[in-house]
């Protein structure tokens, strides 16, 4: 099959090259089409922001068609690679902030002029960092996300939980109370925690002072089998006992917010946009709106918050584009203050500190803004994306969740793999 796939990919690539060279000569006179790849989060969470950007862009360039194509996180890089090989890549692409370095290092993006973009002096520092490589700018911050605990206030009350937990131990004790009250229903999870949900799993690791990998003398070394990380991973295993989510599933298949909307979940660790998503009229359950709230995940040391993964997205312009100017204009329209406000309203952290007050003043966004103050990030190696794509952390967590390997064995094997990938790429 691989052969056929590669053969097909190569054939498609060849045809694409032929098609693009053919169209280069003839169709320039027609309306130019700008192809944008965004993740489907935008489609589900903030379609208004996309529509607004398109309207503003269209006003500026009436003869240019904008074609926004929605992608999924699991497959967009595969498609992007194939498109790069075929010279058929989009004009603008949304990249996860952990995916940027690999592509910047390989020269996949055009450099951008920072001064040209809205709010460029007040961009979130964490996101801006992920757009730079060797002192050059290759992306524009799009939005950031921090995760917090989204929970059912009515269930907490019924289980006798009077206030939100202030420590991880208390969080787990509350989880056990919820299980006692509702757990007879075999579909109920006090804390919905699917086995491959590594953003949450690794937050616990960082909370205990562990790390995914450390850099020593120019070399990376996987650190998940360090004593602190092992303590944390044992906690992860204990947390998973409060969950009846699939031990081999992840947080997006099915979407955890929609599982929550079905009513058999006491709490889950989710992004800001997942709150309104759970209340979606078609997919979720609007009736839950009066019995939902959120709080930052508490740390194992009392009174502190657990640091959260600073997730986020950037917008980049692939080197293959012939419409660099138009691509930059569309990015400008999409990251304007008006558009970013829409994105923030949907539960995200906007790309500029100017809008942080906007989040803090909204009770539905404040817990996430608070959580974002303490964050961790993945090792900044050009090879990091390969660790993600090799599912190293997911495989380790699944092994721990299912008990197929001891915590130590699973962590050691993952650590060795991380050492190898970060240093050699494969």
């Amino acid at each position, binding site marked *: 099959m691989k052969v056929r796939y590669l053969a097909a990919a190569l*054939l498609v690539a060849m045809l694409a090259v032929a098609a693009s060279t053919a169209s280069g000569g003839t169709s320039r006179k027609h309306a130019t089409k700008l192809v944008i790849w965004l993740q489907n989060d935008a489609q589900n969470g903030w379609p208004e922001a996309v529509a607004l950007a398109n309207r503003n862009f269209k006003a500026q360039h009436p003869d240019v068609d904008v074609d926004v194509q929605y992608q999924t996180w699991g497959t967009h890089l595969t498609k992007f690679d194939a498109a790069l090989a075929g010279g058929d890549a989009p004009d603008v692409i949304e990249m996860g902030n952990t995916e940027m370095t690999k592509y910047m290092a390989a020269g996949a993006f055009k450099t951008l002029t920072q001064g040209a973009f809205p709010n460029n002096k007040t961009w979130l520092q964490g996101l801006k960092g992920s757009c730079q490589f060797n002192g050059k700018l290759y992306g524009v911050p799009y939005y950031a996300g921090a995760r917090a605990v989204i929970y059912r206030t009515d269930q907490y009350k019924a289980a006798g939980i009077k206030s939100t937990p202030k420590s991880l131990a208390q969080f787990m004790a509350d989880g056990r109370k919820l299980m006692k009250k509702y757990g007879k229903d075999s579909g109920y999870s006090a804390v919905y925690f699917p086995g491959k949900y590594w953003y949450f799993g690794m937050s616990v690791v960082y909370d205990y002072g562990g790390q995914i990998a450390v850099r020593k003398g120019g070399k990376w070394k996987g650190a998940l089998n360090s004593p602190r990380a092992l303590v944390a991973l044992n906690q992860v295993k204990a947390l998973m006992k409060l969950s009846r989510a699939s031990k081999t599933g992840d947080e997006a298949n099915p979407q955890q917010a929609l599982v929550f909307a079905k009513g058999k979940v006491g709490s889950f660790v989710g992004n800001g946009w997942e709150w309104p998503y759970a209340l979606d009229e078609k997919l979720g359950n609007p009736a839950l709106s009066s019995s939902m709230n959120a709080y930052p995940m508490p740390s194992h040391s009392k009174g502190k918050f657990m640091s959260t993964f600073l997730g986020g997205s950037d917008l980049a312009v692939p080197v293959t584009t012939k419409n660099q100017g138009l691509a930059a204009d569309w990015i400008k329209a999409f990251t304007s203050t008006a558009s970013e406000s829409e994105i923030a309203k949907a539960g995200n952290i906007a790309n500029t500190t100017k809008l942080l007050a906007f989040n803090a003043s909204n009770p539905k966004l404040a817990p996430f803004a608070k959580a974002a103050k303490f964050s961790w990030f993945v090792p900044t190696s050009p090879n990091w994306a390969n660790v993600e*794509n090799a599912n190293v952390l997911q495989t380790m967590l699944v092994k721990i969740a299912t008990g197929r390997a001891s915590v130590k064995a699973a962590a050691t094997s993952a650590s060795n793999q991380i050492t190898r990938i970060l240093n050699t790429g494969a």
Partner: protein
Amino acid sequence: MASVAESGVIPASRRRRFSRRRFGQATAPYVLLAPAAAVIGVVLAYPLYLLVKMSFEKYGLFELIRHKGRWVGTDNYASIFQDAEFWRVVVRTFLFTVVCVSLTMILGTAIAMLLLQVSRWVRIALTTGLVLVWAVPVIVAVNIWRWMIDYQFGVANWALTKLHFGNFERHDWFANPWSGFGVFTLLIVWGAIPFVAITVYAGLAQVPHELLEAAAIDGAKPWAVFREVTLPLLKPILVILTSLSIIWDFQVFQQIWVMLDSRPTSDYYTMAIYAFHQSFQISEYGLGAAIAVVMVMFMFLATLVYLRQMLRTGEVH
């Protein structure tokens, strides 16, 4: 014609026409084959050439963007042969293929034998069922199965619980790779049986009835009749079907890929998935190509048996 040749006097015009026709007869098959050969050359030989070339190159993301690999000789092969994961994947793929092919052939042949015995209506119903299974596109089939064995809402877990096979509520079939591969084996065998059953049935219809009767009269038990008479006659068909099944099952990809949300953990890597993973997920296209080439070699061996049988069958006729 012999008499004309013996007489030794063939009118010149007639001779020319004769030889021209002969020339035409000799070249016609090649002319007719040419378009197909050209298509195969474009869609198969050239990509295969590129694949082999790539397997000798360092071809990562950097090279991909520049459309130019860097020659590294046999480095890629050396690195996969030293990779313990690669050998685990190879062994897993072989085992999986052996199990799937054996089950497919045994069950397929058994169903074909059954088709001979049942009444016409049952035969029509059974054949229709088989054809329908055969007609379901792979991706659709995988999604149907995926729902049937869904962790939370699947009918399989519900039915097994109701039938008192134990508590299968929220049973995760993929938590354990053995049970996970059990599911994949079922899925693959289910999809492969119709072709085998229908083809073997067609073959069985060609077995002369008198032979079976004669054997029975001579006192052979049904099993002996099957082994001594039916099986040898079916052998060419069975060999071809087995080779084809090996080729199909060895390169299983979509079923596992789609069922596991395009993110299978390494316990579920088969050779096809491992090659895809190295290429498209790790962006080491050179390594991926090397694995693919090794895979092509294995398949070539399976095909060799198939080709030999084809040629032999051709000689008989």
